């Protein structure tokens, strides 16, 4: 099929119909027809734009995700192409993910003239209604979900990242003992590309992180970054797709435990511990053979403060240096930048009284 003379917009179903028809072989090898029914932007998530495309392929209903930067760029300081390359390499990983289908950089088909990539949408939901239920009746379900999540982390952390090709796209620490320092250096290298004003709060944080960098990581693992509730796709009590790999790195697996969201609930009944971090780490150790210490988890929680600073500062860079005018970017560079400084203050001993963020 020949491409149109000018690109269309992602909000135009007719354009997406033509685009997907032109990429039919990427949707499914051998597919003969596609009909796009609905294209809609999802408001959840601000780092990049996520759109869903409801379609039928050879008469079967299917859903796809289109990811692209905002018109102003991305909140996070990594390229969209890298996100696509991560998904592409995850196709052979021992954890469930959605299949990356193609990266669109043909000017004739780039929606709104911007690069984008398409992946399959996996049916399920990010929301677990029972996860915050602290009544005893929810214990079994919460622990089962926690174990399911830990199983996936164990599979990910023991995966052969070199064979999957992640050494080609990520910085590789010199050895397990170098994981922490390498992760900090990766952040600073990225920041050097867009930093527009000095931040002594960041300098204080980085100085302390370098001073106390742990050297006892047992291995280098492919780590997901933000993970847990809100970051994975669930169906019938199982994770059917691990989603959101924006902060993925090759580093100490303790890093993922620092960023886990709500999936390790503390449950105590009648004075007896039923579940929590120690139990979860023991369960994970059985599955993976990897020892995770509380000290390393806390260390990487502090590192996350630096990462948060990076993406708020990157938003500021796009507004201040590039002249982009986007309200969500402004808000990120404004309030969230302050919050990232407070987080640095909490981690490194200079938070003002009475201001706390989780």
């Amino acid at each position, binding site marked *: 099929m020949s491409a149109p003379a000018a690109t269309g917009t992602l909000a135009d179903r007719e354009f997406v119909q033509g685009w997907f028809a032109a990429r039919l072989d990427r949707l499914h090898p051998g597919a003969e027809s596609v009909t796009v029914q609905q294209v809609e*932007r999802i*408001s959840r998530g*601000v780092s990049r734009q996520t759109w869903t495309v409801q379609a039928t392929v050879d008469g079967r209903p299917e859903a796809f995700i289109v990811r692209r930067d905002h018109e102003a760029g991305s909140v996070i300081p990594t390229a969209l192409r890298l996100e696509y390359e991560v998904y592409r390499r995850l196709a052979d990983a021992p954890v469930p993910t959605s299949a990356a289908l193609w990266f669109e950089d043909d000017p004739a088909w780039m929606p709104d003239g911007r690069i984008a990539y398409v992946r399959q949408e996996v049916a399920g939901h990010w929301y677990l209604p029972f996860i915050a239920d602290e009544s005893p009746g929810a214990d079994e379900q919460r622990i089962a979900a926690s174990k399911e999540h830990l199983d996936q982390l164990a599979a990910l952390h023991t995966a052969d990242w070199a064979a999957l090709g992640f050494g080609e796209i990520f910085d590789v620490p010199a050895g397990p003992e170098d994981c922490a320092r390498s992760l900090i250096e990766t952040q600073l290298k990225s920041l050097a590309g867009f930093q527009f*004003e*000095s*931040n*002594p*709060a960041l*300098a*204080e944080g980085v*100085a*302390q992180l*370098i*001073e106390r960098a742990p050297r006892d990581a047992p291995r280098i693992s492919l780590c997901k970054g933000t993970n847990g509730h809100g970051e994975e796709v669930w169906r019938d009590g199982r994770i059917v797709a691990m989603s959101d790999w924006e902060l993925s790195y090759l580093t100490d697996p303790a890093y993922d435990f620092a960023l886990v969201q709500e999936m390790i609930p503390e449950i105590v009944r009648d004075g007896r511990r039923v579940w929590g971090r120690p139990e979860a780490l023991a369960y994970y150790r059985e599955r993976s053979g990897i020892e995770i210490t509380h000290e390393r988890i806390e260390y990487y929680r502090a590192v996350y403060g630096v990462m948060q600073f990076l993406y708020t500062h990157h938003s500021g860079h796009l507004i201040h240096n590039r002249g982009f005018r986007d*309200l*969500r970017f*402004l*808000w990120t560079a*404004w*309030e969230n930048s*302050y*919050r990232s*400084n*407070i987080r640095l*203050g909490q981690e*490194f*001993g*200079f*938070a*003002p*009284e009475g*201001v706390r963020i989780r």
Partner: protein
Amino acid sequence: MHPGVDEALESIVAAVEQDIAPHVENEYAASMCRTVAQMLRSVRVRVAEELPTLVADNAELRELLTAHADRLADRSALDAAVRASAERTAPSLEELYADAEALRAALTTLIEAVPDSTDPTRKAAREYLRHSLDRERPWMVDAFTGPRR
């Protein structure tokens, strides 16, 4: 003189929240209405308080940097930043921004020059950072009244 910035921004927030947002059906547009209103509340406080806040912040930085300047092998940039800021009599907001950038850059250099986090210079730096964050609290924390998106 009046209506001033306060009255203008309050009226705009009221229009967004009472006259526009209730009629917005698109989820993303409704979310943007929340961001608009909350950001305007923050801007209103910042406009009123930023100038005296920066004057105080820069003054504390000058004092800190002067007291610890001898920790640097080359203190020329630090001294220049302190001198330029101290010489101003009625600085504009833009001049205060420029001074703050130079003074904060000097503090960053000082922190990086003293690797021991228990050193008095580093402790003093953290005390300044605590005060600085507290100064921004009125528009970065207190001004917000609800969901931002």
